[in-house]
């Protein structure tokens, strides 16, 4: 243990240098961080999400979390001027004891109930959701929720803290139920069904998982409601970057939209969806941030194609929704493509994203998805600002 303590000392010494070095692109999917972003959190009747968050330190950690609902006002209708996204935010607090993992199902939330029965072999009890020290009262999301979850590490008073003690994962389960719009079973393409009926094979399910995106905090965090991600000192950010910057580039290696699934015979194909949220968010004014994204896509022949996407607050975009041509297998002519995404120069915010690959297998009438974290490159000059309502910072 002494040796380990020694190591801690060395690390701490090394870290000083790093911190002095200022912000660097440290949005991470594999290190403990001070801000966790779950870009894709869904509970819409066909999908539900399990959130896992863990305190990786030996001291108690508090976090202030925000759900942002990007669902349409009338989710069953197409988007449009009269059917804008809600962009409604609700917040809650959690606290985790040393090294404590926790979880909740977003549709259920998690109540504080000391009477939760733990799992047990004898008598057999494996349906033990909520067993454990409850992290606080986590509210369930509304009936139709498609949005993001953001958790910010705070001190006991609620002031933002650069503890870098949080890590998280999100597991999305898709049920094979009847899609009320297409009247097809969600996981059995081409299989017609009656909305609300039971004619879809419930033994088919689909589970996908991704790591939460973490933003690492620096030691110059002033604990005020305005969180500065990257950038130099400004009026809003007198200390400069309190957290590392959002990345300048996201690099997505993906299948061309509609490309044949190489591992499966027949006419199986792969479709990709990107879920994107801006880095800048103002929970005080509730003004949804809009970000324009420039996308450069390269096929295996090194041929480049470009396109744009605009995301306000939150969006889940299939590649053919972004551009029907440039991502299409017929256009790219190769199975794989590399897309580099960056905020356009006119955009004042960076963004974060995760991907989801749907492998559609008409031969067996099955669709299965896999979520994927993408790579990043460079850092934004920033800063990107996350503004917490001032009355949510400080003593509760």
């Amino acid at each position, binding site marked *: 243990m002494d040796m*380990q303590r020694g*190591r*801690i000392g060395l*690390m*701490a010494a090394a*870290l000083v240098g790093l911190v002095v070095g200022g912000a660097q692109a440290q*949005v991470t999917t*594999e*290190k*403990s961080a001070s801000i966790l972003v779950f870009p894709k959190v869904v509970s819409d009747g066909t999908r539900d999400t399990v959130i896992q968050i863990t305190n990786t*330190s*030996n*001291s108690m950690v508090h976090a202030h979390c925000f759900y942002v609902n990007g669902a349409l006002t009338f989710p069953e209708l197409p988007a449009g001027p009269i059917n804008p996204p809600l962009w409604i935010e609700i917040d809650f607090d959690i606290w985790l004891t040393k090294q*404590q*993992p*926790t*979880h909740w199902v977003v549709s259920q939330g998690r109540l504080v109930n000391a009477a939760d029965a*733990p*799992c*047990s*072999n004898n008598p057999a009890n*494996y349906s*033990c*959701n909520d067993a*454990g*020290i409850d992290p606080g009262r986590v509210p369930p999301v509304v009936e139709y929720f498609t949005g993001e979850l953001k958790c910010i590490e705070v001190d006991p008073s609620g002031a933002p*803290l650069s*503890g*870098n*003690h949080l*890590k998280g*994962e999100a597991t999305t*389960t898709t049920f094979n139920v009847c899609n009320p719009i297409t009247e097809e079973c969600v996981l059995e393409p081409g299989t017609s069904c009656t909305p609300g009926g039971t004619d879809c094979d419930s*033994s*088919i*399910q*689909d*589970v996908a*998982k991704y790591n939460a995106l973490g933003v690492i905090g*620096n030691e110059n965090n002033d604990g005020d409601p305005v969180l500065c991600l990257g950038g130099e000192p400004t009026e809003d950010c007198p200390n400069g970057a309190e957290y590392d910057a959002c990345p300048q580039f996201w690099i997505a*290696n993906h299948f061309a939209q509609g490309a044949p699934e*190489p*591992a499966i015979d027949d006419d199986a194909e792969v479709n990709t969806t990107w879920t994107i949220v801006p880095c800048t968010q103002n929970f005080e004014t509730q003004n949804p941030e809009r970000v324009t994204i420039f996308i450069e896509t*390269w096929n*295996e*022949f*090194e041929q480049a194609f470009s396109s744009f996407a605009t995301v306000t607050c939150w969006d889940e975009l299939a590649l053919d929704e972004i551009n029907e041509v440039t991502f299409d297998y017929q256009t790219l*002519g*190769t*199975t*794989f493509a590399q897309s*580099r995404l960056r905020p356009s120069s006119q955009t004042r915010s960076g963004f974060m994203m995760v991907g989801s690959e749907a*492998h559609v297998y008409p031969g*067996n009438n*099955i669709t299965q998805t*896999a979520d994927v974290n*993408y*790579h*990043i*490159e460079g850092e934004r000059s920033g800063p990107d600002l996350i503004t917490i309502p001032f009355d949510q910072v400080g003593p509760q």
Partner: protein
Amino acid sequence: MRQVRWASWVMGLAMALGVCGVRPVAADMTSDRAAAILTWPSVISAGVNQADILPTGVEIDTVIQLSNTSTDPVWVHCFYENANPHCSNTGEVCYAAEECCNPSTGCGICIPGWNETDFRVQITPRQPLGWLASEGMSGYSTTPDKAFGKFPIDGVNNFGIGGSSNAGSRIPPVAEDPFLGALRCIAVDQDGVPVDRNVLTGQATLVVQDDEEDYLTVGKHNAVGLLAIEGAVNDDNTLVIGGPEAEYNGCPNYLILNHFFDGADDPVTEGFDPVSTILEMVPCSDDYLRQVPGAAVVQYLVYNEFEQRFSTSRPMQCKQFSLLSNIDTTQNERSIFSAGVSGTLTGQSRINPIGNGLMAVAHELHTGGDLSLAEFNVHYQGDRANPDFIVLP
């Protein structure tokens, strides 16, 4: 039933540094940045003809993606690591000891193996490549629609930026069917000398299909990258990973895995839908010259949601592929990784390698109905004091 079909193929096989308020070390392993050394800890392939090992109709394969993020071409020197165990009596591939029982030869022992096969690929600027582990990549298909499994730029009929091409590239299929192993690719120059270019990204997509039961499931994770330290990579054949003389960033002290405890009921789905997790790990060190795989004693520190702590340990060499609840015992329900023992649905396991460093990915199996698979990269913490070494042939 599905988990049985899957599990039948499964090979039976420290306290956190509480540095409050200190940002983690930047120099570390990565799965979300371009790097100079990429490792795919999980490369699995098994054709439908593997009735002895897989249930009839089940086919498993891995789609490997490898890309160059830079505007210059890069050569990569790759090594397939075949970790298939073989029967001591018949020499056949085995994943369970009973597969070595043969009326004519009696029962042999299923002995772990390690064999490497290397190949080189030239990747042109910004080029994404992908292939099936079972088929590899060879030949050229120089016009759209490019045939899958062939290189796109032959340097004869077509060229990339600056006259780059995939000429001289060939990716063999994995050495055996079935295959359980890993892949490691290292950025090198035209002469095969390692270079400090952090330009490689990679993914692996595991596809499991069962024609008998008509189901399909896929999982995807990123390759694990080791960043080269600019100017530190020399031209010898020993790559120093971490430590005082590092050429590449070191492997972490701790791997942190958040997981459902095995056998826990998925809280989302109706009915009993047990979740279990397979952890796949490979060492950071490998001696391809002397054919000596890396090895480590792995210490597992397990926390449940009650903040209760258990731990166990297990030595591994070359590769570990195991259900969490088979790490400390063969009786899953008695394992500290099982929900019935740990008492909560989810847990955090901190994995501390003694010996060589480790890289890992996790497969999450939801087995209530048809098998549904989710894969994810584990988290990292801390730097190892001692370096790991990759020795090239």
